[in-house]
């Protein structure tokens, strides 16, 4: 049955795994936020080939499972391009690129929500396209979508244990290794579950707080 001494024994391993998980999610989210915006902007390009190929890539990545992408990049592409990337870095890149295809949709909704006249006004004042995005469009497009972007942060957090399949020593992997070595899975896996509930609740509350704040700001 439940043994507290096992808890104290496994906790340091799990906490070091937690740090790795948080690193992976933070890195992946930064990437997803930047790339997603890039896809959303490219999809609006007047160059047909650019907007269409962006759409194609985004749809392709969205329609294949994250686990397949992880395996493909880790076992196939790494061999092709040489073993330059650590498992963690590989995980961050795949998580980031995968989720960027979802955040792109969120950004798109945000950009669509900005009144058409804002583009006209910016052009009449002779702003460059880059200045128009940076100083006129994005400051209006992003605040309303922050809660939705936050929801993808939560989703990514819950999918981060998939990185254990490419040998990243994140929280689930640490628990599993401990279990394999000590033939005890109850405490390690329970702790992992509790940690995720805790983190998800925390992130959920932050998103809710963000939603209230941006609602107050944009109304």
């Amino acid at each position, binding site marked *: 049955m439940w043994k507290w001494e096992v808890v104290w024994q496994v906790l340091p391993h799990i906490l070091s795994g937690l740090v790795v998980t948080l690193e992976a999610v933070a890195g992946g989210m930064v990437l997803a936020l930047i790339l997603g915006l890039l896809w959303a902007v490219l999809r609006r390009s007047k160059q047909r080939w650019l907007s269409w190929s962006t759409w194609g890539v985004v749809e392709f990545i969205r329609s294949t499972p994250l686990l397949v992408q992880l395996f493909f990049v880790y076992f196939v592409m790494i061999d092709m391009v040489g073993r330059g990337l650590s498992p963690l870095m590989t995980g961050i890149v795949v998580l980031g690129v995968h989720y960027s295809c979802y955040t792109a949709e969120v950004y798109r909704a945000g950009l669509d929500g900005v*009144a058409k*006249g*804002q583009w*006209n*006004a910016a*052009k*009449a*004042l*002779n*702003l*460059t396209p880059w*200045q128009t995005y940076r*100083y*006129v469009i994005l*400051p*209006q497009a992003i605040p309303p979508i922050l809660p939705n972007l936050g929801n993808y942060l939560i989703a990514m957090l819950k999918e981060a244990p998939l990185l254990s399949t490419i040998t990243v020593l994140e929280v689930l992997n640490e628990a599993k290794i401990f279990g394999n070595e000590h033939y005890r899975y109850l405490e390690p896996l329970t702790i992992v579950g509790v940690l995720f509930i805790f983190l998800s609740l925390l992130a959920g509350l932050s998103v809710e707080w963000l939603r209230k704040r941006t609602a107050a700001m944009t109304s």
Partner: protein
Amino acid sequence: MATQAHRGNDVMNETPPQLRVRDLQKSYGNNAVLRGLNVDIQAGEKIAIIGPSGSGKSTLLRILMTLEAPNSGDIQIDGESIWTMPNGDGNKPADEAHMRRMRSRLGMVFQHFFLFPHLSVRQNLTLAPRLVNHVTSEIADETAMQLLEMVGMEAKADAFPAQLSGGQKQRVAIARALAMQPDIMLFDEVTSALDPELVHEVLAVLRKLASASDMTMLLVTHEMNFAREIADRVLFFDGGVILEDGPPEEIFTNPTHQRTQEFLKTVLEA
């Protein structure tokens, strides 16, 4: 053909117009909005553009501001085409640098203001001068305050657009366009979206501008008395061409075309 040639010769002997529009065509699908429009405008002229809705008035302004591309035709500012640039013996479509240089000659005020809602009134005025003309913040602020004073909005410099009435927004929008120091200002039905009691404050600003500045002004308007009062010249648009072109007295009291008479009758009675 003969009239075109004649017009061409005529113009060559005079000072070239600041703005020249030749055979401008624009259609949306099967709907032709501009059907070969021609006009010459001299620097400093105050021009009222009137006519029924759908006659192409706003479309002309939007094409002048490069917000939309014409299907064919030529627009020149001081002899230089907006939409094309020289390429050897011929012309090629204008590149972005050329378009931006041409655009810097023009300013536009819109029916629905289009102020930047996330910026204060002052920031609305200083954004483009700082980013585009590389004016220092101090000078941009100073100019902004002068312009806000001119339109009677200096007390609201730190307010946000959402806190302003329609008339106040439009006065800020006028100041914002002026901050870029254009040579030609385009006003696209700037009082049409306002509550009736707010129209006069915007007209007062335009009146002041028309009498005090040597900018060229093109005003698309439904305010006939105002057009008559401040314009040097009135263009009556109908069906995508200029049907009548002359001093306000002539157009309003003695229009040549039946269409003009009918239009004026309808709007003046309303």
